[in-house]
């Protein structure tokens, strides 16, 4: 009758694995439930159009933080895109070389560096020398976090482009630069866009690297060299403060953040959907 016992054990394990999925879904559902219910009841037009009110006064919004977040994220993207994409081009074009392996290793290493450590680093190179927290410093910190992701997706997707495309361009007399930037890179573009959007989704919710780079600002600021408020840091400040109305706004901010992140990752999936259909059909 050992077989019966073995079968029972097998069923038990299958059951436990299914249970593991459910166990993970419970916190996910709870988090989304609270963010949506608490966020929706707190979210209003004021949140997007008004400035924070002084302590003790209710109402107001996070207009300055929303603008600040967009600013810092854009600076990050501007900083990260060329480095990420072109180093990805290098790694795929010269994939057998030692320098390409070192680059790949550096990207993977950078990826594992905790975001707070990147904040400390940027504080040292972009805040301390100028004695000034700034939007640029915050952007650079986020940009550093984006680079490895963009680099790795660019590299992997360039390698997927059929070699014959590049060879065709070269045979027609194009230089390598021309072949790569006008033929190979455009062919891989949707995939690279996916990578960029996913990296945006990842940094849009980052708080730790902004705490002492972009810092915070009670006022509306679009200056690149001044400290700037961001949604994430503002949600943090509000959530650990002892005021009911600030907690309400923190939930509203969390909802906006989750929406931003989900939109980015949804767009990322759409960006390659067409290409994937082509590949499947072809």
């Amino acid at each position, binding site marked *: 009758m050992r077989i019966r016992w073995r079968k029972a054990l097998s069923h038990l394990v299958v059951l436990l694995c299914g249970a593991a999925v459910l166990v993970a879904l419970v916190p996910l559902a709870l988090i989304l439930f609270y963010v949506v219910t608490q966020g929706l009841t707190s979210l209003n037009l004021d949140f997007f159009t008004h400035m924070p009110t002084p302590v003790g006064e209710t109402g107001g919004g996070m207009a300055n933080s929303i603008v600040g977040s967009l600013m810092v994220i854009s600076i990050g993207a501007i900083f990260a895109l060329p480095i990420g994409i072109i180093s990805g081009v290098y790694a795929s074009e010269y994939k057998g070389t030692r320098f390409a392996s070192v680059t790949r290793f550096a990207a993977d290493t950078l990826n594992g560096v905790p975001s707070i450590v990147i904040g400390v680093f940027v504080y040292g190179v972009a805040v301390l020398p100028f004695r000034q927290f700034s939007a640029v410093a915050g952007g650079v910190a986020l940009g550093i976090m984006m680079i490895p992701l963009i680099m790795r997706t660019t590299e992997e997707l360039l390698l997927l482009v059929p070699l014959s495309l590049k060879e065709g361009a070269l045979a027609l007399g194009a230089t390598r630069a021309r072949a790569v930037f006008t033929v190979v890179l455009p062919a891989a573009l949707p995939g690279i866009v996916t990578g960029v959007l996913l990296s945006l989704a990842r940094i849009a919710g*980052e708080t730790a690297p902004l705490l002492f780079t972009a810092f915070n600002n009670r006022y509306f600021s679009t200056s690149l060299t001044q400290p700037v408020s961001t949604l994430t840091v503002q949600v943090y400040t509000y*959530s650990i403060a002892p005021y009911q109305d600030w907690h309400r706004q923190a939930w509203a901010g969390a909802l906006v953040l989750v929406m931003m992140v989900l939109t980015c990752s949804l767009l990322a999936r759409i960006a390659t959907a067409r290409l994937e259909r082509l590949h499947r059909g072809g």
Partner: protein
Amino acid sequence: MPRRLIAARPDEVAFRIGTGVFALLLIAIVLGIGIELTRESMLSIKEFGLSFWFNDKWDPVLGEFGAKAFIWGTLYSSILALAISTPIALGIAIFISELAPAWARRPLVFVTELLAAIPSIVYGLWGIFVLVPFVRSLELATPAWMKAIPLFSGPPLGVGMLSAALVLSIMIIPFTSSVAREVLRAVPQAQREGAYALGATRWEAIRMALFYARTGIVGAVMLGFGRALGETMAVTMVIGNNPQISWSLYAPQYSMAAVLANEFAEAANDLYLHALVEIGLVLFIITLVINVLSRILIWSMGRQPKPRPVRTVAIAAAERA
């Protein structure tokens, strides 16, 4: 050597150098982090030397800095989180790669990876207002005989090691499970078929696959560990921020990342700042070692990518990153 010939063309050289500069920049950033963190923590390294790591007193007012309590908090919370999340993450990976019907796989992957998409600050906010009160009610309900055990001693504050470990474990589940899933995918189908042919039950066949994939699975768990060590916001918001060394799950404690988040912008003098940067330096080194080890383990699985749709490659590359 035709390659040499091509490389000699001036436009070819220009292309290689032009793109190489950007690759060099990427490498320079990583080296720069190590150098800058060392440079900015020199004062503290010189002043305290190794005793920095074995002193549990952290008193910025008196200028006495020891990091032992923070290291303890980081390691303790991460190990607890690993203990909770590993069985769940592996269960999910097994369920998705071995058990679930084909149509259910994609939605399941999507849903579990939603966990990774939620920002850390949102976990923290949820932690403060939902999880901590729940944990406090658990702690209040602790029977007296349990409170006698050091693990459950102390006042029921809600904030503390238990809340931190719970939040962390939820946060690292998607990382461990997605890598474990990839690793299980790399197990040749023949392994499972062989097991079934010999009369194995489902679980016995899965066990074969797990055994085959063991190095990669250890790598996946370590990758989750690396994430847990560096996690900042959610932990800062629920761990209690009290530099003490205690086995108690109920005790408010502190972590390396949390002390950076809380005190860095307020560091009043150079020694204080350098002591904080030194904590960052060590966090950098620890996570570096863990990540490199886990990647070596995962690579050693010899993941030979099968032809896959572009979208999967793009998303997988991004997620691995």
